[in-house]
């Protein structure tokens, strides 16, 4: 999560859901929290009961809006205009928390003379290389900071590898103006950058009336300060945009200006969409990072020398200075005694990033016939992935496909009953893909961990054995690895040295040989190599090969044999200490040093959390201090100091080399140091701010004949489309459409449209409608509701259409998949697609079937005929 990572230092929610009860106002935007996180939403309800004001901003009035004090519809894709205007409101009216801003953010840091803002260059920051279609970010550095060689800047990388904050420059070197008057200081740059984000622009770009804007701004500002705090909750309604990271960045700026980070009731809560999505970036299923957010080495750019890799990625100051310890300990966990100092601890056994290996990147490769095989686990891309029609067709290019799931998903049966078969685009008898469907154990049928939205790791114990041949993922991966290693042993090959070197010695237990997951968790926790004694935390890790650790941020989760903290269920306080384990070090609110003044005393009695105990000379409080426990507030580092010692006693953002929260991000983002309003890749409007720059310049459309786009605007596709989820179903439906008690609650695909649009198109509530985009056509039942409101923007009416995306061609309840309509596009930093702001058309009646269906598709998308 580079949005949070580059701003604060760690790519995770800064607070916990339970802490929302301490908020005085909660802004929920880019999320329908009540709909998709109903259990966590209890804390929002509790906060409201205690007097907090709940603000919900969403194109649709949904379950969350129903509980809000203020709801306003917004034009999908205009989020940065609204948050930018809130930032402007704070700056213009001097509502910022000045002491916090001065000491804890980089507001006072001076930028270089050659830095140019979008306001100077008509929508581009300085450094844009039009030939390469990417930024060269030298000019974004702090004035006086030496630059570094940044491997991730060279193209193929994803941004996850990049949010350590010190990749491009020595960010601990800077010049400051504490009066904030210097025109080159971040504060003044920020002011100029957002000067045109006025309430008038909010009205014309977002469709939010000025008085509603003022109400929102005043509610947030008056709920912030020494005695008050406001929180922001977001989910994929912000992420899944062509500029999603920058939307999150805008919230980070607002919360830093209001002094709401690191304090009870404050923070930014990144709501994750699945049980362990946070866990799947911590111990990643991503291609560009290793466990604990260590960068995956790049082919060519990263040398084959571990020493150079560490020098490249290790900042001099800040916590990431420990990168060498975490890297070597990870290699020791991977390769055990085979990892020696002589062979650089097996550094060159690690695979290298050679291109875009993200989901969308490799799926395009698959469509082009460049891939042979695929494992699909815990996923149903035939329904859940963008341009699912393209994705399903791409599956037919594989030689083999392994699907592990609890049911036969659409992905497993694309060759039999997909819409492509029905339309004759694919023929079953011509598909050569061999499909292996393995039954998977459900979560109650296996033990293991979830790391939830607030970095909280909870261990769960198996309740019953899985039925018949169903097995856990751990079982599958362990035995697959074991068999591969045995095979390699029998037929040695230089290609397999990394596989041969890998430690793979978990105990397999019981009749089916289930690996002991607590052993895995112990390896993740880390141990000293000599005596295999568990370490108590990452501070014990060493760079000399004497310790091993599978994921440094989780270290401390299993400090002693028999003491699995993730298994604890005895909450002691309002932050839930004693229940599970929150990384890092069981801190529930990150950067909590900021909950005290620079001198270490709480900002107020009401909002005290962590403070300096002058008598005992240590940090204490209700949470585990996110700070070196004995570092006094008046500590000032020597020039020669390194790592955490190089940070002063009043610098709460300890991961960053300068120890400050970043209003301006000098390193780590591919599309600008500040958020800027660009239109979605498909928009009914031109970018009124920068007519020459319609879209985020670094976003990728991956446009091709089977992934086409509408124009902006486009008469063929006049309406704005957002996809979303419902409480009753889980994502692509594999876990809910097959259960009658859930399937009956939302049995059919529907399309939410306003009564006005329904009247214009002569659509009656409940009848079938056909929805089309430049990629595909689907049908749905018309849910005509006043919860969807047309927006009036500068005299123009904008109609928005809402589509849940849960249905497919299998299960108890079937329906068309909204993802057939979505394009495969890539946000520049995390390569996520844009699902929340598209252009579509709607007509009454059902879609055509068979050959006529193909003809209809070809007419709309300009392709689709069988080659």
């Amino acid at each position, binding site marked *: 999560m580079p949005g949070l990572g580059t701003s604060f230092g760690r790519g995770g929610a800064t607070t916990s859901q339970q802490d929302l009860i301490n908020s005085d106002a909660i802004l929920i935007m880019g999320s329908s929290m009540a709909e998709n996180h*109903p259990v966590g939403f209890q804390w929002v309800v509790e906060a409201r009961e205690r007097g907090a004001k709940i603000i919900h901003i969403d194109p649709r009035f949904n379950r969350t809006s129903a509980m809000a004090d203020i709801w306003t519809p917004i034009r999908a894709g205009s989020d940065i205009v609204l948050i930018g205007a809130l930032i402007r409101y704070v700056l213009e009216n001097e509502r910022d928390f000045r002491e916090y801003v001065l000491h804890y953010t980089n507001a006072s840091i001076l930028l270089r003379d050659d830095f140019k803002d979008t306001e100077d260059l008509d929508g581009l920051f300085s450094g844009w290389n039009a030939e390469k279609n990417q930024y060269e970010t030298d000019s974004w550095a702090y004035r006086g900071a030496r630059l570094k060689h940044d491997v991730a800047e060279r193209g193929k990388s994803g941004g996850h590898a990049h949010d350590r904050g010190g990749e491009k420059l020595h960010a601990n070197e800077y010049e400051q103006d504490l009066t904030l008057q210097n025109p080159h200081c971040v504060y003044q740059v920020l002011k100029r950058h957002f000067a045109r984000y006025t309430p008038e622009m909010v009205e014309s770009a977002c469709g939010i009336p000025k008085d509603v804007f003022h109400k929102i701004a005043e509610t947030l500002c008056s709920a912030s300060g020494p005695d008050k705090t406001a929180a922001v909750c977001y989910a994929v309604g912000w992420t899944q945009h062509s500029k999603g990271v920058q939307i999150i960045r805008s919230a980070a700026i607002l919360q830093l200006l209001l002094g709401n980070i690191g304090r009870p009731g404050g923070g930014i809560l990144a709501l994750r969409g699945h049980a362990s999505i946070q866990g799947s970036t911590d111990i990643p299923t991503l291609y560009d990072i290793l466990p604990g957010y260590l960068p995956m080495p790049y082919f060519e750019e990263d040398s084959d020398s571990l020493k150079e890799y560490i020098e490249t990625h290790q900042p001099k100051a800040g916590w990431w200075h420990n990168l060498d310890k975490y890297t070597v300990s990870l290699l020791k966990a991977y390769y055990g005694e085979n990892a020696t100092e002589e062979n650089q601890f097996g550094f060159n056994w690690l695979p290298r990033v050679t291109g875009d290996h993200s989901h969308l990147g490799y799926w395009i490769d698959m469509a082009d016939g460049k891939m042979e095989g695929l494992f699909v686990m815990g996923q149903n891309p035939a329904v859940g992935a963008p341009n699912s029609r393209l994705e399903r067709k791409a599956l037919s290019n594989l030689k083999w496909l392994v699907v592990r799931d609890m049911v036969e998903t659409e992905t497993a049966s694309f060759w039999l009953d997909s819409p492509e078969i029905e339309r004759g685009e694919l023929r079953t008898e011509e598909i050569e893909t061999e499909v292996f469907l393995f039954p998977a154990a459900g979560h109650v049928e296996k033990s293991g961990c979830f790391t939830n939205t607030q970095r909280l790791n909870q261990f769960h114990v198996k309740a019953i054995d899985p039925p018949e041949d169903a097995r856990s993922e751990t079982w599958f991966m362990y035995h697959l690895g074991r068999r591969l290693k045995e095979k390699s042993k029998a037929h040695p090959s230089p290609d397999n040295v990394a596989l041969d070197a890998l430690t793979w010695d978990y105990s397999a237990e019981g009749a089916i040989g289930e690996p002991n997951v607590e052993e895995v968790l112990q390896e993740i926790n880390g141990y000293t190599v000599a005596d295999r004694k568990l370490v108590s935390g990452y501070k014990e890790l060493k760079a000399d090969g004497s310790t091993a650790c599978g994921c440094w941020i989780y270290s401390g989760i299993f400090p002693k044999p028999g003491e699995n903290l993730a298994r604890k269920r005895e909450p002691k306080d309002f932050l839930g200490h004693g229940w599970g384990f929150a990384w890092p070090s069981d801190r529930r609110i990150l950067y909590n040093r900021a909950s005290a003044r620079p001198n270490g005393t709480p900002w107020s009695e009401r909002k005290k959390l962590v403070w300096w105990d002058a008598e005992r000379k240590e940090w204490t409080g209700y949470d585990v201090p996110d700070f070196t426990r004995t570092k006094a507030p008046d500590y000032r580092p020597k020039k020669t100091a390194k790592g955490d010692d190089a940070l002063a006693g009043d610098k709460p953002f300890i991961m960053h080399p300068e120890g400050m929260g970043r209003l301006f991000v000098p390193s780590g983002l591919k599309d600008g140091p500040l958020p800027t309003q660009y239109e979605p890749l498909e928009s009914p409007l031109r970018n009124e701010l920068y007519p020459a720059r319609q879209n985020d310049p670094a976003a990728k459309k991956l446009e091709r004949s089977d992934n086409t786009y509408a124009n902006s605007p486009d008469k063929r596709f006049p309406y704005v489309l957002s996809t979303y989820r419902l409480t009753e179903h889980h994502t692509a439906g594999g876990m809910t459409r097959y259960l009658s008690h859930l399937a009956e609650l939302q049995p059919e695909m529907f399309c939410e449209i306003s009564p006005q649009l329904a009247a214009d198109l002569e659509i009656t509530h409940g009848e079938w409608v056909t929805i089309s985009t430049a990629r595909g056509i689907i049908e749905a039942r018309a849910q005509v509701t006043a919860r969807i409101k047309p927006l009036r923007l500068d005299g123009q009416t904008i109609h928005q259409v809402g589509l849940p995306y849960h249905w497919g061609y299998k299960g108890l309840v079937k329906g068309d998949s909204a993802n057939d309509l979505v394009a495969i596009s890539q946000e520049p930093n995390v390569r996520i697609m844009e699902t929340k702001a598209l252009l579509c058309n709607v007509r009454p009646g059902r879609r055509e079937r068979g050959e006529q269906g193909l003809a209809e598709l070809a007419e709309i998308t300009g392709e689709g005929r069988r080659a």
Partner: protein
Amino acid sequence: MSTTAFLTDSTLCIGCKACEVACKEWNQVEGDGFEWKGFSYDNTGALGHSTWRHVKFVEAGALPGRGGNSPDAFTWGMLSDVCKHCENAGCLEACPTGALVRTEFGGVYLQDDICNGCAYCVVTCPFGVVERNPDKGRAFKCTFCYDRQKEGLQPACATACPTESIKFGEIEPLRERARARLKKLREDGFGDVHLYDPTESSVGGVHAFFITRGDPSAYNLPPEPEVPTVYLRKGWISAGIAAAVMLAGTLLAFAGSDKR
């Protein structure tokens, strides 16, 4: 004897339907079938033999000045309905087989293995709660989770509710909580809240009361529920009078024929 009750508070309900699903899972209730109904987000329709908790969604226009719930823009009310477990229960009084009984918790329990499917309970329920399963021929309704209560557990719906919109407990303290809640809501600007607890009506009080915004009848809660047996006396008197009149007429007819 402990008598218990539900307090269901629409001002806390987020319409997640966890109560419906938890009820069906615990009690192994059959499904409702897969029919998209188009009534807002509600596709299970109403309380019946296969739905013992039912969340109703009420979409309404802007109601400015009513406090909370985005009143300037729109309101979307949600309420989880359930069997009221009446003090004077029409179903129980009408049941000819003794399938319906009063439990020690004050609830009305339908023993489906004793039910003969006469459906008298269906027509005598003032709230439209009881329904006969056409396939099985017998009636079904909320058990008040009698089995769970016997074990000291809360009913499944109350346990599953994430926002404590469904509260469960001893009836009198719960009634006190309901009144206190009503007072607080009014102080917070919810001028239109009501406590639905028809003690004055002929059902003589219920074991499931509700806090609603606006008119409770919008949520299928009748303003004056009546247990049909209140008409028994009147019915018997009318029948008696009719019988007397007919007898008298008959006698008169005979008396007249004598004269002839």
